[in-house]
């Protein structure tokens, strides 16, 4: 089984990289882009039967910094 963790900066936390990507898109002529937020995806290859609670604990203890980041979790 797999877990796909999508980590994003929380709303209200300024994302300088997203801002830079937005301005680069604007330079390319994509004026319809109102905003860009950049995050990351972490894919875990897990032993079958792993409890989702375990994955949440991995997120809170290491994978995600709850001061600035939030995440969504998808188990496949």
């Amino acid at each position, binding site marked *: 089984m797999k877990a796909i963790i999508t980590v994003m900066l929380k709303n209200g*936390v*300024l994302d*300088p*990289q997203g801002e830079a990507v937005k301005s680069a898109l604007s330079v390319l002529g994509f004026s319809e882009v109102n905003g860009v937020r950049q995050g990351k995806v972490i894919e875990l290859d897990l032993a079958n039967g792993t409890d989702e609670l375990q994955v949440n604990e991995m997120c809170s203890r*290491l994978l995600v*910094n709850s*001061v*600035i980041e939030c995440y969504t979790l998808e188990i496949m």
Partner: protein
Amino acid sequence: MRAAVIIFPGSNCDRDMVVALRESGADVSTVWHKDAELPQNLDLVAIPGGFSFGDYLRCGAIAAQSPICRAVVEHANRGGYVLGVCNGFQILTETRLVPGALMRNSGLKFLCKPIDLIVETQDSAFTSGYGHGSKIQVPIAHHDGNYFVTDAELTTLRDEDRVAFRYSANPNGSAYAIAGVLSVNRRVLGMMPHPERAMETKMGSADGQALFRALVGQAIAA
């Protein structure tokens, strides 16, 4: 004063930190990150700058989970002194010994230059050697020094006089131009600028001396 400098894979300011502490009168040892214990009767742990674990995942995140960091947190909880500089500051935020987080510089560039700092409080072993509100020059060298705290946490930091240093001109987008913060018991300091790189006039500035001398002197007196 007995001090230990922690070395992670990717630390690169550890030797400068050792020299700065020794020159200021401390008895200094170095500790490898895989060690689970600190030397006995330690007064100060210094976490140096660098790029621990290649800055993978988040700056300082992996170092903060290393065996030695558990011992550093216990040392701090016992009331021991901890100084984290640059990557050391990032590691301290990841261990939650100081609040907040350090994000990519607002201008996205790696910044490496001397910079003016305002000493915001004299009320700590780290800053008692400076005059209140005095301006000192210390180098910065970082890509991720943009200090983030929630508005509520910032209010708490200011109310409790725990902002140690502010940038005279904010280089990286830090909240309230914060360059260094203290823990609740004022014995843990995290700061992005490098006082260990400002120890002699021939290095461009000797303004870091007062931090190390006050810190080493305080622990001897205690």
